[in-house]
């Protein structure tokens, strides 16, 4: 048997525990300088931690407080496109107006030319109705050429409307031409009067004025002469109709361009009244476009705040070192139910869902560590102490240490464990997490189903230690969790939407990527199944 007092190991152990020491001043100076350095290091580290925490909070606040600015930035291309479109439209309209006014002038000049040309026709009487008709045909052909793109691009409703308008104007012009006939008759007799008319005046007033002036002069003229002239008047009427048709063709061209604009830029102008002027149409189009973009913006980006709470069930995902002597501690551990709560900010862009928030949660395990017989026995050495009797019958004590014993037989000993150490408790760790989530929304009437994936950046809260059976023959040991743990999460949110708010349930799975407890013996992570329920509110 081993005699402890004789053993040199025990002697030195005892003596080492008896020493007493005073703190020298040099030690104090040194420790003060080391503590100063430690304080500075802590401050720096604290600053970094705050920075990491403040970044997501800052982002949330930006979204909450200045959502319009962010939206404006995001929708700038749309707005600029809108401006471009409206600029294009206005430019097109301006050009159309200019073109139209030019065409009107051209038409006016054409009318004047016609009128001017009519005089030789009328006065020389070498023109005929057939010639005038052929001239009309030429003009009509030109118009048809101009109409072709309109036929290709102009909607049927617009085309029909144009035809209707042309027809109305033809009837109107016919009436006007009837009233003009006497004037033109009289005009035929007074070429000089017509030739001296101011070019800036329009054809109709000119003719009307001249006709009113000349009416008195034509009183009492020969019926035959007027009959001859009527043929020419008919030609003039045809021309005036053609002129109107030409004007209408210009209008038609304008409509054609509008239609192109409408077709290329817009898609919802079919409901617009075709009798509106192009300016009115463009205005309506602009308004509808702006409202459309606004509606799209509303539909595209949404902001929500959610409050939630729930429970989760944690189980250890334990990796033990390969040493066979280590008793698998997880056989004495069981799952733990714990609470969680927090808030989330969510941004919805189309059907995509982005979330960031802050949550409080706990995980860990219930432990029931009791003594178990392991298969591991460590025998360092055996000390033999024997008493020998020599030849003169003196008793001598002999001691020797044997490092290895040749084994000739197997000795099996089953000894009951005598210690009564039992540890029955809960290892629970508290985390403040920043969850980052990404998901896709499936909207089904008033319900939404949102599968999500995400990461949790978790910082340990408090100073709770875990108790584990880890080291050889040292009983229970305490381990502190990692300060920071990264986890991934899979979620499926089911929500019922109301006008501005919604309620939801959110079952999820969460698993640590980095270990919570890490040592030479164990690497411990946690897998958690949980469910959260809560309420959400649209903030914009």
């Amino acid at each position, binding site marked *: 048997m081993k005699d402890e007092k004789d053993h040199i190991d*025990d002697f030195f152990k005892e003596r080492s525990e008896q020493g007493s020491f005073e*703190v*020298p001043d040099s030690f104090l100076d040194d420790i003060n300088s080391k503590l100063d350095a430690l304080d500075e290091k802590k401050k720096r580290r604290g600053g970094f931690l705050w920075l990491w925490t403040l970044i997501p909070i800052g982002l949330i606040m930006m979204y909450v407080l200045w959502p319009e600015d962010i939206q404006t930035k995001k929708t700038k291309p749309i707005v600029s496109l809108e401006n471009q479109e409206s600029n294009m439209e206005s430019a097109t309209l301006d050009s159309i107006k200019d073109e139209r006014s030019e065409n009107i002038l051209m038409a006016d000049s054409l009318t004047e030319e016609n009128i001017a040309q009519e005089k030789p026709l009328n006065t020389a009487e070498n023109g005929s109705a057939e010639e005038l008709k052929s001239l009309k045909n030429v003009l009509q052909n030109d118009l048809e050429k101009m109409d072709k793109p309109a036929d290709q691009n102009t909607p049927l409703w617009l085309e029909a409307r144009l035809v209707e308008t042309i027809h109305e104007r033809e009837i109107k012009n016919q009436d006007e031409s009837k009233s003009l006939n006497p004037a033109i008759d009289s005009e035929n007799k007074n070429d000089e009067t017509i030739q001296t008319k101011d070019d800036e005046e329009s054809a109709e007033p000119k003719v009307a004025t001249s006709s009113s002036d000349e009416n008195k002069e034509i009183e009492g003229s020969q019926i035959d002469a007027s009959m001859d002239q009527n043929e020419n008047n008919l030609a003039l009427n045809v021309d005036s109709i053609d002129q109107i048709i030409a004007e209408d063709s210009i209008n038609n061209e304008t409509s054609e361009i509008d239609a192109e604009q409408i077709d290329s830029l817009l898609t919802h102008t079919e409901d617009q009244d075709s009798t509106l002027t192009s300016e009115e149409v463009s205005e309506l189009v602009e308004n509808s476009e702006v409202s459309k973009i606004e509606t799209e913006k509303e539909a595209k980006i949404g902001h929500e705040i959610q409050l939630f709470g729930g429970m989760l069930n944690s189980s250890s995902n334990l990796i033990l070192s390969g040493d066979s002597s280590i008793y698998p501690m997880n056989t004495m551990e069981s799952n733990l139910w714990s609470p969680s709560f927090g808030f989330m900010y969510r941004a919805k862009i189309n059907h995509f869902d982005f979330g960031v928030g802050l949550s409080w949660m706990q995980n860990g395990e219930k432990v029931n560590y009791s003594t178990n017989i392991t298969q591991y026995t460590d025998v360092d050495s055996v000390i033999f102490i024997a008493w020998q009797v020599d030849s003169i019958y003196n008793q001598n004590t002999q001691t020797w240490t044997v490092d290895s014993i040749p084994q000739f037989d197997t000795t099996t000993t089953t000894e009951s464990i005598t210690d009564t150490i039992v540890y029955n408790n809960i290892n629970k760790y508290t985390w403040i997490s920043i969850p980052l989530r990404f998901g896709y929304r499936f909207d089904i009437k008033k319900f939404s189903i949102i599968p999500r994936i995400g990461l949790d950046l978790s910082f340990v809260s408090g100073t709770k230690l875990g108790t584990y059976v880890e080291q*050889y023959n040292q009983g229970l040991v305490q381990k502190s969790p990692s300060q920071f743990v990264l986890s991934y999460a899979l979620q499926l949110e089911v929500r019922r939407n109301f006008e501005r708010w919604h309620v939801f349930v959110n079952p999820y799975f969460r698993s640590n990527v980095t270990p919570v407890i890490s040592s030479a013996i164990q690497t411990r992570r946690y897998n958690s199944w949980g469910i959260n329920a809560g309420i959400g509110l649209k903030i914009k």
Partner: protein
Amino acid sequence: MEVTEDIIREVKAGNRKITLDLYHYSFNVLMSSAVRYKNHKEDQMEIVNNAFVKIVSNISSYKPGTAYFSWIKTIVQREIIDDFRKHKRYNELFKMSDSDTFQESVVDPEVYESIDSESAMQMLNVLPPATKLVFNLYAIEGYKSKEIVEELNISYETVKWHIKQARKKLKQLIIENKIPLKQ
């Protein structure tokens, strides 16, 4: 002095007075470990103060009510082992040489009782550094051979050899100090 929640809070908050009180309270344990491994005052100071900085840094890991001295002892041991590992010729330190011829003899228990702690520490300091480290860890700190193998990354035979050498040498020192042996 008892290390309570309040003290931990103050230490964490950087209260220098409380921290220095804790230093005085811990000093005996830290120093008694340091002197077994290091002969020079400066080296002992380095071990003690570095270990205390680790204690302050990790004070939140300590659970009030549990054995504070055991906890800080573990920290100072780790510090000593880490310090030893920094040695440039680390592996050479553990090289086994031919053992001195020394006749095994038994020291009377009364002889042990006559040696005070200071003399015992002086005897330990005579041991070569590697032998002293292994013997300290095994005999005084209570490490098992297997743990020493893992901690120092040396073979099991090397550990056993150093323990045996330490014992022989220490016995020799006791005998050379003219301490009477029982016949």
